[in-house]
Structure formats: C-alpha cells, structure tokens
C-alpha cells in the first residue's frame, strides 16, 4: 500500500540540512509531548499554547518532508498535524487514543530521519510510517464516531477485542442477525492447547445446531502455556432458558451479550446529553419499527433484565481498550517482570552457595590421601562450574542494569515545569546519563533526586535580580553528574545558588535541641545537620539557608538502599549533594569475619583493607579508640561490643577491617577473618530486622546462616558518635 518512490535519491548537503532541522523540531516536540503527557496524566485541560506549538512543529515537519519528496514522512507529519489540529480546536479530546500515538509518531519520524543521516540521504522505506498513519486515522475516527453511530454492534456487551477481530463480512452477518431480532450469545470454553481442535469442533457443532456461529476468537487460557480459550460469538432464535436446555455443554459458559434494541440501554454508560438524546430517539424508533423483537424482549425481562451483567462487560470494555492500545506499540524487545529477574537472581545465588559447598567437599577430599584423586577431579569440575556460574551471574546482573537516563529525563521534565511555575531562569546540566545501575535502585532514586532538584530550584537558586546583584549570571545552573567508581555509583547534584549558611543551620539546630550551645562542630558536621529530621521543615530554614526541606527523607531513602548522602556548600557559591550507592543489591562478595562464637558477612565493596594489629597500637582519646593508619587517625569500633558478644582477651591480636563509604572511614575490630564468599543478601523477618547495623542474612557454603552488616549504618553511626562526643 505504501506509495512507490525511487529507491535512491541524490545525496546532497540539502539532505543533511533537512536531517538537522528535522531533528531539532523533533527534539522540541519530544519535550512538549512529555509535558502534554503530564497534563493528560493529571487529567488537566491541555495547555493551548503547548498544543499550538506542537501543531506548528508538525506543520513544519510536513512542509520539510514534502519539499524533499519524502512521501511516507510527509504523510506521517500530515497526520500528526491533523491530530494536533483536532486537539487544538477541541475536536479531539486529550484522552483520545490518537493523542497516545503522537509519541510513537515522533519516534518513528526520528528513526526515519536518523536512517537518512546514516545513509547520507537514502530515502528510508516507509512501511512502518504507513502502518502508523493508518493507526492514527483509525484512532482519530473511532472515538468521534462511536457516540453518535447507530451501529447496533457497539451496544453488545462483549470484549471489544472480539468485535475488533471481526472481518467486514462477519460484522455484516452480526448486524444482519441483530436486525432480525436474534439473540447474540457468547459461548466460552477452555481447552488444552495440544488437543483443542476436537473439543472445539464438537462445541462449534452443537452451537451450529441452535444458530449461526459468527466468530471464533482464541485467547490465552488460565495457564497460557498449555491452555487456550475460545469465545464463540453466535446468533440464535432461542431464548436463554431454551438455549440452556438445548446446549448442554458441561465445560462451556454461555452468556447473552445482546438482545437487540432495549438491551442497548443496559450497556451504555453515561454520555453527553446530546448523544444520549440521540440514542433515546433511536431506541424509540427502533422499537416502533420492530414490534416482534420488542415483545419478546419484554417477556424476557426477568432473566434478561440483569443490567449488572452488562456492567462488568462495560468496564472490561475500558480495560480491554487501553490494554489493546498498549499492545499496539511496534516493539521488538521483551519486557520482563522485575520479579522474575529477582527469582532468577535468587536461583543463581543459591547455585553460588551450593558451589561453595562443593568447593568445601573437594578441599576435604583432597586433604585425605585416600580420596585425594577423586578430590582433585571434583575440584577440577568445580573450577569449570565456577567459571560458568560467574558468566551466568554477570549475565543476569547485566539484564538488571539500566542506564540512569530515564531518571534524568524525568528530572528534565520536572525542571521544565518548575522553570515555568517559578519563573526562574535555571539551566539543568546532565552528565553521565549512561551510567548503569540495578533497575530496582534506579526506581528508588527517582524520589530523592526529584526532591533534590526541586529543592535547588525552590530554595537554592536566587531570583535573577538577586543573582545579578551578587555578580552572578541571571541564569542559575543545576548540574547533575553520575559516574561509576568501582562498585559504587556516585551522583552529584550541584547548584550555583546561595549556598547554606552554617550559622543559620547551627542556630536552628540549637533551637531544636539537636546540638548544645557550647558544642564544637566542624564545618562539615554542621552542614550534615540538615539531614536531621528536626530541621527539615520549610519555614525554618528555607528563606535564609535555602535548604533543609525533607533532607532527612533523602537520607533515609539512600540509607535504605545501602547508600550514603553527603553535603558540601559555600555561602554565595552553591551547594553540592553527593549520593553514593552500590551498583546492585543482588549478589555481593562478602568478607566473613568472626567475633566471639559468631560470624558476620561484610560486603566486600565497602572493605578497603584488613590489618592485623597488636592491642598496644590501639590508642584511646576522649573515650574513643583510634588507630594511627599511615599517619591518619582511624576511628575504631569493636564489633563484639556492637552486638553485646563476648570480647577476646585484652592481649589477643585483633583484626581491623577498614570500611569506607563515600568519604567516611571506620575500622571495625574483629577476632578472625574467615575468608571471602559470594553471597546473596536476603531480607530478615522478625525482630532482628529492626536491629541497626544489620541489613540482612545470607547462607554460607557450609549452609550456616550469618547476618550481613549494614556498613553504611555502622559508618554513619560512627560519624554521628564523633559529632556527639
């Protein structure tokens, strides 16, 4: 159906210009469509300026494409323009499916343009564009026609998917049967997919004995892998009672979906006055013309007058329609439920643990001269298994990784809206959008990041006049930068606003009783107070310091993800908030340590080094234990003391596990190091789950369970304790 056109066209500078201009327009449209989608989601009226701008963009695209003889693209742009024109003039409602197709149209247009630029001017084939054009046409037409049409098919209370799959001829048959006043029934039955034909043939045969089979629609059964469900749409002269006695089908469900004329009232939802008036007229004239069916309908009332039956059908209607809408996207990726990935990850984790058990057995067998040969074989096998498992593990992990881009795009949208609402000139700079992170973490980052951007807009960036007075450019800048550092991802949100005044924070903290008047705090410790819950209400800090709104929530969110948040700020120059979090929460390498009779797992990503120290080298200062680590003081904590476990003798050598999280360091004193293992952290249920410093539990190779330490909480507590001391 696509219009024929020459396969190749002269490549020229002009094409490059077309491509670059089209890309510019498309970029603008993407932004505007994102805003439109927000309005649509919020069920607001469409902003007329926005729609008008979109319309003009489409118009320009159409003109450009037309100039270059790009028929497919020109057609697509023309349809885009049509929809937007309709929206602009109020002919197309904002919730029309056609509006939902605009995004896709822009994407298809972009792809075509990109193809052109990559092939330096080869005209892309426009099969996809043509298909989309047809869908837009369809989407524009159907909602406008539906309310005023007198088509009796629209009044049937069946899943619209079924009606959509009727061929023109089948539709004609259905209409004809309705016109004759026959009852329309839906017969549904589920069969095993491998042997459905026999059962279905039997069912079809029995239905044919009482009427005409109009359509047979297959659908996935309750267990879609092995079952298939068929919906037979049929027309019959029998009434419901007679039908039931004649059609004795144990496994099939029979439902009347339409008796003509008056039945229609039941299946219609509330509509505009004009439309329902028109319908009433139709219904009346219909009953006047057709005394026969109306009589019968009246006599059927007791069994047939079940408007509730029509209602679920009607709501299915809406659900079914939107579902179909989403199915239409031309996509060639497989969507996977994150839960399924979690299950896979868990399985891999369990395999990893069992592999460790095999390693332990192999080691035991090797150690004994009697079994050392078989032990060596097992250990060779184990090595092979280990390699493959690592590949599997990284494969599954990779699938979970998504770039931060989608979150950042959301932030741009938020920024765009804020720019408009607050009338502030702010530029949002984004770097490192390709940095990848576990999908679950990415989802959880949206709120804190939106919060930070909003804060920067709202409070940190000054009004243009104020900025100019301070010798800054009128336009403020918020810079968001993500980067990967080892097994962590660091995201910085920095602004060039007014900065946080530590004196104001301090005064506020004292007023709240968070710090006492005489207490000495470093600059950083003072700034960190903005994360304290007591300090986070708007009126308190906003005007003077420009910060403090819900920062405790940001910190809580990050901590829950095993991450940290830091702040740095200079008055008059700006503020930088740094979020540090692990790349994934799934499989981790852990260091197993022992204190007293207990073992604990520490995520290796947070372990900087381990040291063996003499008790004498531990120094005490102001009641805290410290270690001189190559000239720098390292705060120490005894793990045994944290959990109330018996401590090793005072002259015993101790191990120090140096933990690092963000810029903070902490030395954890333990009795033994028991090696490294791959572990899967599982959540704990019961009272232990509330114990601070514990993030979960894991199973070791010898199948014993140990607790996993929450390094961010331990480091955090140490910092706070230092502050408090």
């Amino acid at each position, binding site marked *: 159906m696509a219009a024929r056109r020459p396969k190749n066209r002269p490549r020229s500078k002009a094409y490059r210009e077309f491509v670059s201009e089209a890309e510019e327009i498309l970029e603008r449209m993407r932004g505007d469509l994102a805003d439109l989608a927000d309005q649509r989601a919020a069920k607001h009226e469409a902003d007329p300026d926005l729609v008008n701008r979109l319309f003009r963009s489409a118009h320009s695209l159409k003109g450009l494409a037309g100039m270059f003889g790009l028929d497919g693209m020109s057609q697509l742009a023309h349809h885009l323009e049509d929809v937007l024109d309709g929206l602009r003039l109020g002919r197309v409602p904002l919730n029309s499916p056609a509006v939902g197709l605009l995004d896709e149209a822009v994407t298809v247009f972009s792809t075509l343009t990109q193809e052109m630029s990559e092939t330096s001017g080869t005209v892309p084939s426009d099969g*996809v564009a043509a*298909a989309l054009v*047809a869908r837009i*046409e369809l989407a524009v037409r159907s909602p406008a026609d539906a309310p005023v049409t007198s088509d009796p098919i629209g009044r049937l209370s069946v899943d619209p998917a*079924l009606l959509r799959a009727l*061929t023109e001829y089948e539709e004609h048959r259905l209409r004809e049967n309705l016109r004759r006043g026959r009852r329309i029934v839906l017969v549904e039955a589920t069969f095993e997919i491998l042997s*459905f034909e026999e059962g279905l043939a039997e069912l079809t045969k029995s239905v044919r004995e009482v009427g005409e089979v109009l359509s047979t629609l297959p*659908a996935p059964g309750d267990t879609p892998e092995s079952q298939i469900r068929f919906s037979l749409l049929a027309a019959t002269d029998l009434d419901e009672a007679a039908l039931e006695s004649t059609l004795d089908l144990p496994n099939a469900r029979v439902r009347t979906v339409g008796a003509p004329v008056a039945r229609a009232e039941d299946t219609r939802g509330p509509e505009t006055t004009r439309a329902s008036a028109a319908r009433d007229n139709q219904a009346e004239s219909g009953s006047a013309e057709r005394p026969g069916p109306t009589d019968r309908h009246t006599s059927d009332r007791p069994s047939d007058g079940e408007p509730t039956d029509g209602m679920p059908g009607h709501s299915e209607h809406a659900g079914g329609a939107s579902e*179909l809408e989403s199915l239409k996207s031309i*996509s060639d990726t497989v969507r996977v439920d994150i839960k399924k990935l979690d299950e896979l990850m868990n399985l891999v984790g369990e395999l990893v643990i069992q592999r460790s058990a095999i390693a332990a057995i192999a080691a035991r067998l090797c150690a004994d001269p009697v079994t050392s040969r078989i032990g060596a074989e097992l250990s060779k096998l184990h090595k092979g298994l280990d390699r493959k498992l690592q590949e599997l593990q990284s494969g599954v992990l990779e699938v979970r990784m998504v770039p931060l881009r989608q979150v950042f795009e959301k932030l741009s949208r938020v920024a765009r809206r804020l720019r408009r609402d607050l009338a502030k000139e702010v530029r949002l700079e984004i770097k490192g959008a390709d940095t990848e992170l576990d999908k679950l973490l990415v989802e959880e980052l949206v709120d804190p990041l939106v919060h930070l951007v909003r804060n920067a807009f709202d409070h940190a960036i000054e009004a243009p006049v104020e900025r100019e007075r301070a010798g800054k450019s009128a336009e403020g800048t918020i810079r968001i930068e993500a980067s990967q550092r080892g097994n962590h991802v660091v995201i910085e949100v920095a602004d060039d606003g007014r900065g946080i005044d530590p004196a104001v924070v301090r005064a506020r903290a004292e007023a709240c009783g968070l710090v006492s008047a005489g207490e000495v705090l470093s600059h950083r410790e003072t700034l960190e107070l903005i994360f304290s819950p007591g300090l986070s209400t708007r009126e308190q800090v906003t005007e003077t310091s420009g910060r403090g709104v819900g920062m405790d929530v940001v910190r809580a969110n990050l901590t829950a993800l095993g991450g940290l948040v830091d702040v740095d700020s200079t008055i008059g120059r700006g503020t930088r908030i740094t979020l540090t979090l692990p790349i994934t929460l799934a499989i981790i390498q852990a260091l197993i340590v022992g204190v007293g009779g207990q073992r604990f797992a520490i995520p290796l990503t947070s372990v900087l080094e381990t040291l063996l120290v003499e008790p004498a080298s531990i120094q005490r200062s102001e009641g805290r234990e410290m270690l001189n680590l190559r000239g720098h003081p390292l705060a120490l904590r005894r793990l045994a003391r944290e959990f109330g476990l018996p401590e090793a003798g005072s002259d015993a050598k101790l191990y120090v596990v140096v933990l690092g999280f963000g810029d903070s360091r902490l030395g954890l004193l333990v009795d033994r190091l028991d090696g490294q293992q791959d572990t899967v952290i599982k959540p704990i249920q019961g009272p232990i789950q509330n114990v601070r410093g514990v993030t979960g539990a894991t199973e070791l190779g010898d199948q014993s369970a140990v607790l996993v330490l929450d390094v961010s909480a331990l480091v955090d507590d140490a910092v706070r304790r230092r502050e408090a001391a």
Partner: protein
Amino acid sequence: MQRILIVEDSATMRSLLASALTDLGTSIEITEAASGFEALRLLPRELFDLILTDINMPDINGLELLSFVKGNVAYRDIPLIIVSTEGSERDREKGLGLGADAYLVKPFEPDDLRRVASELLAKRREG
C-alpha cells in the same frame, strides 16, 4: 537464523509467499500453516520472528489470529504482516488497529513483501 510462519489456506499462495521470502537469504527458516488452528498449535512450539497471515481462512480468520498473537505476552512482540486479498479499507484498518505491523494486498510485488519483511526482521534482530 530467523523463523517465519506463513498462515494461508491456499497452497499456491503459501508457496508463492515462501519462495519470495526464501530469497531473503539462507538464514531464514519458513514454517507453513494451512489454517489458523494449525498456527495456534505451532505458536507454542517454536519461537517465530515474523508471522504472515491471510485474513479469510476457514477456521479462525486472520484478524482473530492477530488478536490472539497481540493479546498474548508470549507472542505479542512477534511482528505480523497481513497478506490479504481483501482490499477492504475496513479490514485493513482493523488489522492495523489490532496491532499488525504491515498490511499487504494480494497480488503483491515480491519486492514489496521482501522489503517489509526484511525491515521487520531486522528490527526484531536488533531488539
């Protein structure tokens, strides 16, 4: 290797379609189904990369097959081309509305079929 399923009740038309698509290259495997029912039975057994279907068939029609494919999470990402004698605008609209990726009218130009098919197969590969 990419797999194409052709659903068409006319054997002549099936072989015409198959031979046109065979020219796409050696890495194509074609499976033929003579009816919608046969297609329903084949779908769970093999992972297809493209489906071609006629509309008017004796058991279930092509639109019903299409509705089944696009309404099923396991299959809905398989691109589907309707190849039909129906010149009817209504059926064309319905097909595209149900999520068909392309619609070709018989008699079709083998070149057109190859172009659309290879476009959809390439997209599927990239995905």
